[in-house]
């Protein structure tokens, strides 16, 4: 897909960067005519809060002194720009944009006396708190992975000593083991149950028995469909019933206990019991 779009742009061979440059060029006449819609890969970001944190860091001040209003505006500008380019963004990002637009209006218009709800400043403080908390956890994760780690920086005894084994057994299992065993077992079982219960398949044998019994009672030509519908338990069974019955029909015809007729291609298939004594026997 991506390749097709690149070729359309006429810069095939220029590598990945070329369409990017074009994308972000101020002047976008090349894009105006191109048909494909673009889905922005925001995989690099862990959601809108992460994006906001990135923007906030660009303010190059301590998060405690950050201008939430400026941040909201930057975010909205970003979203606006992306939308103008008809890039699709995950709903999360749009929800955040809506909230920030709301926050912005609250911050710009002083709280009216008697107005319900939190003030813009309170909402801004909550956002700032969340950003700082997220950043704190980011830093904590970085400090954690850079610690001396077992198996990388520090090591356990490489040759733990064998102990003489007595009769006593001590069992070990973790909750994770237990839950994994349970979940996968129940899942397996649930799925196999579903297969049996919901997608019943008519076996050839079943179809034969059914047809033999049915046709035996009718000397008139009857459409196969009519027989089937009468016995269909559920619409899902229609295909399998049809296929198995048809195969069974052919078998019964070959054995001479059934006659089959079709007026033209795709027309209904008519069946009737062979008007002979033998047919009656099979019908039993």
């Amino acid at each position, binding site marked *: *897909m*991506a390749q*097709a*779009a690149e070729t359309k742009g006429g810069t095939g061979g220029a590598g990945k960067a070329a369409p990017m440059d074009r*994308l*972000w060029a*101020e002047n976008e006449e090349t894009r105006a005519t191109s*048909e*494909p*819609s*673009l889905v*922005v*890969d*925001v*995989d*690099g*970001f*862990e*959601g809108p*809060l*992460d994006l906001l944190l990135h*923007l906030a860091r660009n*303010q190059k*001040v301590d998060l405690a002194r*950050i*201008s*939430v*209003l*400026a941040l909201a505006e930057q975010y909205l500008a*970003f979203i606006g720009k*992306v939308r103008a380019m008809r890039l699709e963004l995950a709903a999360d990002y749009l929800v955040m944009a809506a909230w920030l637009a709301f926050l912005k209006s609250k911050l*710009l218009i002083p709280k009216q006396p008697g107005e319900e709800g939190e003030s*813009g*400043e309170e909402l*801004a403080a*909550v956002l700032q*708190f969340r950003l700082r*908390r*997220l950043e*704190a956890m*980011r830093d*904590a994760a970085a400090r*954690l*992975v850079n*610690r*001396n*780690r*077992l*198996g*990388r*920086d*520090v*090591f*356990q*005894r490489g040759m*733990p*000593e064998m102990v003489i084994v007595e009769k006593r057994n001590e069992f070990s299992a*973790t909750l*994770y083991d237990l*839950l994994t065993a349970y979940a996968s077992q129940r899942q397996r079982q649930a799925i196999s149950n579903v297969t049996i219960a919901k997608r019943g398949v008519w076996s050839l044998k079943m179809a034969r028995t059914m047809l033999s019994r049915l046709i035996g009672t009718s000397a008139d030509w009857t459409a196969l469909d009519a027989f089937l519908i009468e016995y269909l338990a559920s619409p899902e069974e229609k295909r399998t019933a049809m296929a198995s019955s048809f195969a069974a029909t052919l078998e019964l015809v070959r054995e001479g206990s059934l006659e089959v007729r079709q007026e033209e291609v795709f027309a209904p298939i008519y069946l009737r019991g062979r008007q002979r004594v033998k047919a009656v026997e099979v019908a039993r």
Partner: protein
Amino acid sequence: MSESVNASVIPFVIGDDGEAVRNPAERLHLAEAVRMAEAIVFASAEPVSEKQLAQRLPEGVDVPAAMAELHKIYERRGVNLVRVGDAWAFRTAGDLAFLMSRDAVQQRKLSRAALEVLAIIAYHQPVTRAEIEDIRGVETSKGTLDTLLETEWVRMRGRRKTPGRPVTYGTTENFLDHFALEEIRDLPGIEELKGAGLLSARMPSNFSIPLPPADPDELTEDEDPLTDIDLEELGLLTPKVTEE
């Protein structure tokens, strides 16, 4: 190691505080217990709990005292006795990491998201999945928690006593062992974070409220307007083109 220049070749810190108070029989008893504890913990690759030690050492041994003694003995050796929760283990000294790195076993690399979730669980425990998602502002993808549970660094610890009784997550002893932590309180920076109110689920009341600048449309001195280059940085580096 500069102190050791004038010390013996073996820079052990040896009983210099009040052992004389103990009577000789008691001292002998403790010395033997220390040797035994040393043998038991040394033989095991996994941390040995004080409870297990108490079961294996002669009756009446003051296990914490013996372990404190042993800890001090190994303090400056190439192998240290470290505390892992309420268990003990011998581990190579941290300052020798440079020497040991060639033994390093290939470790599973955790994704950035998984690491972040791990940090949140460690610092905020007990924490529910909803709280983790609130902190990160994003849904936790399937497999992230699964992966962490599989490393055995994270466990389900119980349920929050709130409506719906959500399961809470916390870290394990393996986590402490892996990251060379004696206890959760040793997590880097945890006290400061707590003090700053950053480990609470809700914003503390004393949290400062940022005031909007006088003219909100005007960028402050320390702000740059958003440029196209910024936007490019913002994850739009690999737009996927899909035909409709």
